[in-house]
């Protein structure tokens, strides 16, 4: 579903990704682990198309299309979801309005009809309930006044409503207590597990992987994948540290 | 509670005044060394001739004088300025022989106490008080050298730094002076700057050559105490490419002058990658508790950050003068140039201060920071007035302004007048301002730990002003901290 081939990228002229290659087939969940500064967040932003993250070489193919040629919103319409490490606050815009307008924009791009107000509210309420979140939270401005954990859960609600084909989840486990971690883990499994879906979990720690069992684990260091393996690699990293393994 | 203030600083000033008026007794034979009273073209010619100036400078002065005649005094500041009779004043006097006393024991005990509170070393006290033969001793004591002037000059010469009075510089380096004089503050900039251009008495000229880091902090301290630079001081600092200089102006000791009107001009010209740090402690006589007397301090200070990545930083601690009108500013013309303004202004009794800065962003990626702390006490008025302007061609400008006022007592005023004018969408401008009174909780807390009220106020006020004080060179900062406390004594309670 996602094929990254020899990807090079710079931020403010500084090389961060240095020939990263990675393939995530449909139906699989992969984890990328690595020390701080390895380029984990850069990878997620490059995949999302964030301005300022410049691709200087390599290709990324997403469901047969050239991902890098697409604008951020086109990537979303194509089925890519980026879970932000630091979800952005947008004062004055309610989450409800934000998600609904975004979802309908995606649907229109795919040639589908808009969801009506009633349909959307039903969907939002159901998805919020899965996270144990009061739907009233979604009436508040996007991420404003949310705690770190609430922001991450709100990201999962968005993901549940949008049902992407592929999710890149950047440090989704950071800022979560153990109960929230279990809930978020269950949500990732519920929303992203399926024969025509896939996900890439970007994380520093192994603990999210207790709840979302990855099919493959990759170690990122200095902008490239230096090791890949099964779920046992995550445990080994936890035990031995990055210096030993990578 | 403000009527019965014991304003030690004021008392010291008054004591100093008494000394000057009676015991030091300026006599009438000084008259012969003065220009005739009043201001006209002849006065300007007289000044220029007395200083032996070249023709071009006389012409420059005359041009300024003629322009000044057509201009009006500024009226937009939040200041109540009594009418000034410009014809009822002397515009030139030969540097006066300072009256001397035999030893510090003869000094008024009040002044002595103030000096001690400020922590001014004994030898410097002698210089300030005009003790006979003190200068050389002070110099020796402070710098452990037989002749500081010589040592200074040698070291600066070796580095290629020019540090002269403006009068000397006009003779020794006429081309340099001519090139930059008036290049940052044009003659017609404002009424007071124009007056200064016509009749400036003396001042300082500094030139730092390309790539030179000035080997010492340059200070007007010694010269100001050595000779009377007069009421129309003119300072010109030129920092060539990649150079650095830190310049200190003023003195924390109470300064007095029989000239009520002071209209100084300071121009700084910074070339590519040059950095100038300009620190001021201003403690001119503020007048008595009823607002009688005191200096009118109308100063025009401006820096031209002409070269790419040049940087000028203004830091000021303003505690003196009856009226202060002063806006040290930066024209940020070079791409990536940086302007900073850090200010503490204290007003007490009947003092009035209208001070702030202008940051004019012309170049791309220019940045400015403004931190202003105003402290009002007694029946004073303290105004921050500032302008942040971003021109259409200035891309990616950043400005941050923090502007806080502290009120001590309910008979004073604290005002904030910031102008923000932005003509480029890529600018990021942030401005914050707060007004508060001194916290009774903080006062009580500090006092419950054993500080008396004055010490507690000084502590809190210094905390309030900390961001600015920490910009000062170390030895200056210590004195400035003490000065804040002294300036506010008796204002709470």
């Amino acid at each position, binding site marked *: 579903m996602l094929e990254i081939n020899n990807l090079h990228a710079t931020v403010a002229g500084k090389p961060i990704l240095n020939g990263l290659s990675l393939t995530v087939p449909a139906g699989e969940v992969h984890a990328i682990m690595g020390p701080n500064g390895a380029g984990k967040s850069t990878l997620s932003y490059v995949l*999302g198309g964030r*301005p300022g993250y410049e691709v200087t070489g390599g290709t990324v193919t997403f469901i047969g299309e050239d991902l890098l040629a697409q604008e951020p919103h086109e990537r979303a319409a194509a089925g890519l979801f980026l879970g932000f490490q630091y979800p952005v606050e947008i004062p004055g815009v309610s989450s409800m309005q934000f998600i609904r307008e975004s979802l309908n*924009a995606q649907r229109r791009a795919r040639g589908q009809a808009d969801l009506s107000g009633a349909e959307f509210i039903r969907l939002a309420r159901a998805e919020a309930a899965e996270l144990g979140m009061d739907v009233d939270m979604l009436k508040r401005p996007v991420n404003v006044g949310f705690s770190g954990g609430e922001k991450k859960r709100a990201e999962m609600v968005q993901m549940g409503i949008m049902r992407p084909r592929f999710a890149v989840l950047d440090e989704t486990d950071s800022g979560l207590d153990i109960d929230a971690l279990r809930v978020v883990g269950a949500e990732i499994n519920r929303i992203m597990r399926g024969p025509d879906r896939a996900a890439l979990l970007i994380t520093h720690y192994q603990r999210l992987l207790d709840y979302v069992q990855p099919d493959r684990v990759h170690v990122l260091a200095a902008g490239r994948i230096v090791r890949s393996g099964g779920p046992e690699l995550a445990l080994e990293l936890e035990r031995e540290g990055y210096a030993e393994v990578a | 509670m403000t009527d019965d203030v014991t304003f030690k600083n004021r008392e010291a000033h008054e004591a100093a005044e008494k000394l000057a008026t009676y015991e030091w007794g300026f006599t009438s034979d000084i008259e012969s060394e003065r220009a005739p009273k009043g201001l006209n073209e002849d006065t300007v010619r007289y000044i220029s001739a007395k200083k032996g100036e070249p023709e071009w400078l006389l012409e420059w002065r005359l041009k300024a004088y003629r322009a000044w005649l057509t201009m009006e005094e500024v009226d937009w500041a*939040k200041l109540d300025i009594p009418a000034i009779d410009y014809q009822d004043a002397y515009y030139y006097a030969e540097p006066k022989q300072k009256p001397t006393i035999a030893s510090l024991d003869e000094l008024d005990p009040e002044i002595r106490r103030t000096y001690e509170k400020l922590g001014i070393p004994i030898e410097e006290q002698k210089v300030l008080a005009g003790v006979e033969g003190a200068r050389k001793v002070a110099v020796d004591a402070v710098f452990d050298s037989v002749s500081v002037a010589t040592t200074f000059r040698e070291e600066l010469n070796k580095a290629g730094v020019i540090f002269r009075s403006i009068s000397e510089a006009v003779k020794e380096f006429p081309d340099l002076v001519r090139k930059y004089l008036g290049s940052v503050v044009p003659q017609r900039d404002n009424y007071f700057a124009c007056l200064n251009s016509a009749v400036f008495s003396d001042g300082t000229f500094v030139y730092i050559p390309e790539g030179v880091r000035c080997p010492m902090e340059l200070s007007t301290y010694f010269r100001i105490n050595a000779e009377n630079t007069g009421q129309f001081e003119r300072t010109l600092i030129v920092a060539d490419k990649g150079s650095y200089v830190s310049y200190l102006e003023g003195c924390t000791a109470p300064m007095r002058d029989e000239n009520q009107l002071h209209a100084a001009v300071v121009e700084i010209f910074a070339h590519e990658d040059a950095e100038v740090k300009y620190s001021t402690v201003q403690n001119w006589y503020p007048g008595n508790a009823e607002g009688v007397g005191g200096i009118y301090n109308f100063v025009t200070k401006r820096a031209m950050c002409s070269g790419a990545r040049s940087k000028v930083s203004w830091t000021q601690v303003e505690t003196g003068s009856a009226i202060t009108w002063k806006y040290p500013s930066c024209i940020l013309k070079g791409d990536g140039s940086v302007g900073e303004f850090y200010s503490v202004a204290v007003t007490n009794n009947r003092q009035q201060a209208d001070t702030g800065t202008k940051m004019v962003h012309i170049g791309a990626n220019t940045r400015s920071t403004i931190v202003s702390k105003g402290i009002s006490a007694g029946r004073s008025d303290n105004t921050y007035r500032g302008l942040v302007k971003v021109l259409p061609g200035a891309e990616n400008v950043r400005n941050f302004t923090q502007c806080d006022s502290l009120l001590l007592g309910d008979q004073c005023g604290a005002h904030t007048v910031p102008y923000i004018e932005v003509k*480029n969408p890529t600018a990021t401008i*942030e401005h914050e301002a707060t007004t508060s009174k001194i916290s009774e909780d903080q006062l009580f807390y500090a006092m419950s730990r054993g500080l008396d009220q004055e010490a507690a106020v000084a502590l809190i006020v210094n905390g309030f002003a900390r961001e600015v004080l920490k910009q000062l060179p170390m030895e200056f900062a210590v004195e400035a901290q003490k000065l804040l406390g002294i300036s506010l004594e008796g204002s709470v309670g």
Partner: protein
Amino acid sequence: MTALALPTRKDEAYRYADLDALGRVWADLAQAREIVVPAGEAHSHVLLAANEAVEVHRARLVIQPGASLDLFALNGAAEYGRIEMDVEVREGARFTLNAANIAGGKATQEIVTHVRHTEPNGTSNQTVRSVLGGTATGSYLGKVAVARQAQKVDGEQSVKAMLLDRGATANCKPELEIYADDVKCAHGATVGELDPTQLFYAMSRGLPPAEAKALLLEGFVLQLWDDAPEDRRDELVEASRALLRRVAA
């Protein structure tokens, strides 16, 4: 009829005004509207100034002890819009202003306030948002004055301007004149463009750039009307949307 001479740029309250446009309506300008909110009452007013090419609205407001006034003002005149008010806030009274300049083309819009706290325990809150496109100019000149006897006053100003195009100008002058010591007065002002991080976040959720921009601008402005009187809120929202569409286009 106004007997006064046309102001000039030297008049502080008119330093950013479009004096040509003002000159055309000056002679016919109505006297400032007088509004007195009686003691203890709570009033709301809506001023929607977006119908004529030139709109100049002036008001003198007195909020009597214990009363409150919520004012919602949308400045959207296509050529010159000026909303000017002198507000006296008496003991324990409260004044809230929520106002927007939405200007495009060559328009000049300004909101000029003088809020005078003459007695203790008053509160004033002014929130002004400007969205400026084309070569438009949007200004806020706001002065909060606290008299000597007006202790325990709380005066806030929040001013934010967003510049959409090269050539647009934002001016603001949030002024404080404080003569009482036990007060809480603060202001914050920012000028900038749309936050690129917010823009990317919205786009990463599927919104095309123009829609993402429109949504963020609405968020920037429409929260001003959250507490507007129910019967006028929709009108304010719709008028703001229409103006934003025009300005952001």
